[in-house]
Every structure is written in structure tokens, then in C-alpha cells.
């Protein structure tokens, strides 16, 4: 545990924005934690582990697709497994992106704006995620 604390750029220990991180983590992760930075760390790594097989799977599938006609893509996505895998991929992708963008924003932008930007990116990201998953299951 201690090693992990050090590895996450020191954000786990004594960070001045601890209260803010705690709040934002709860918004995304929905589990109150005494170690907000650790939650960020776990979700980033967890989503990375999901993205490794699912991302490669998606790229292989796209390379194997004979063409990109509407009907071809629709019938590819309409199968049970593909729509499920696509949903998992999109969730992991957006979670991983939002966590990464949060770190970038924290590194370069100072605080009143930092907080706003993180919330805006999360709002946009979750909205896009919801819309895309709804799309998969309305096809």
C-alpha cells in the first residue's frame, strides 16, 4: 500500500485538494473512501486492465470487417456478444479517459478553474457514454 501511495505522484498523501478529490471520486466511483487518490489509482489501473483485451479485440474486429457499409456494421454490432463487449469497451474507455484528463488538468491548471474543468469533462464524458450505450441497445 505504501509503495502505491508514493507512486501516484504523491497525490495520495497530504494533497491540498484532498477534500475536492474526495468529492470528485465519490461522484464517479460512488464509494466513499478514506484514500481518494488510491481510488483514482485503482480505477485507472483497473480500467487499463479491461482496456487491454477489449481494445485489442475491437481493433481486430474492425480490421476483419469486410467493409464499412451501414448494414455490415449494424449486423456486426447487433450480435449479443459484440454489443456487450462494445458496452464494456466504451465504459472502460471513458472512465480511463476521464481519470487521465483529470490528472492532466490537475497538473496544468490552478484551482478555481481546475475544479470546474474536471466537472465539465466528467459531465460531457458521462453524457457521451450514456448516449453511446443507449445507441448500442436501440439498434
Amino acid at each position, binding site marked *: 500500500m505504501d509503495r502505491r501511495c508514493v507512486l501516484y505522484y504523491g497525490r495520495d498523501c497530504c494533497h491540498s485538494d484532498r477534500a475536492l478529490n474526495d468529492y470528485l471520486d465519490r461522484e464517479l466511483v460512488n464509494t466513499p473512501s478514506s484514500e481518494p487518490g488510491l481510488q483514482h489509482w485503482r480505477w485507472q489501473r483497473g480500467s487499463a486492465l479491461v482496456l487491454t483485451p477489449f481494445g485489442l479485440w475491437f481493433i481486430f474486429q474492425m480490421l476483419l470487417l469486410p467493409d464499412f457499409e*451501414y448494414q455490415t*456494421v449494424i449486423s456486426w454490432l447487433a450480435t449479443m456478444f459484440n454489443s456487450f463487449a*462494445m458496452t464494456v469497451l466504451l465504459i472502460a474507455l471513458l472512465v480511463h*479517459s476521464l481519470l487521465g484528463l483529470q490528472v492532466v488538468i490537475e497538473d496544468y491548471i490552478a484551482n478555481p478553474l481546475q475544479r470546474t474543468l474536471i466537472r465539465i469533462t466528467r459531465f460531457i464524458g458521462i453524457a457521451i457514454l450514456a448516449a453511446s450505450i443507449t*445507441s448500442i441497445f436501440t*439498434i
Partner: protein
Amino acid sequence: MTNSRPRPISPHLQIYKPQLTAVLSSLHRVSGLFLSAAAVGLAGWVITLALGESVFAIVQQFLSSGYGTGLIALGLFGFFYHLANGLRHLCWDRGYGYDIKNVYRSGWIVVACSITAGIVAILIAL
């Protein structure tokens, strides 16, 4: 305190000679930012599938144009690089490969793997 003369400042990035470690680290962040945009693009692509054939055709027309193909190729290289370097990070998280020799060795492996995988993927796609 008066600022009658400029205070000493800490060295900035451009002071340092570019090293593999620093360059790959920056590249991980840059590729991550690019892939975040690509992720939004992917979600948007899925949404256009639900919006119907005419909307999908417009998007597909852009993707098959020169710009679209270039962006996809860049995205493939970015994906394989971010993936390979991400796995390197996961190894570090487990405590492996921290000494300078292995950091450089794994760095070059990442460069070789991502370029190879990117070229192979593009050749298959053509």
C-alpha cells in the same frame, strides 16, 4: 519584499537534453490526450449508427477521406504506444524494472513494439 532583481528560478524542461525516459513519458500523456479525443469519436461513431444510414454515411465518408485515414493511422500508433507503455507502467506498479538499465530496455521495447504493431495494423487495413 522588493523584486529589485530577478529571483533565481528552477530549471525548466527545455534546459534538459531530451532523454528516452522523459520523451516516452511525455508521449504517453500526449497519446493519452489524443486517444481521449478518439474515444469521444468512437462513441460518436456508435451514436451515428443509431441515427440512421444517412448520418452514418456522412461520417464514413469523412473517415475514408485523406484526413480521416490519417487520423485513424495516428490513432492506431497512439493506441499501440499507449497500450505498450501502459503495460510498462503496470510492471512498474508491481515493482519490476525500476533500475536505469531496465527502464531503458523496456523503453526501447515499447518503441519497437508500438511501431511494429502500428505498421502491421495499417498494412492489414489497406
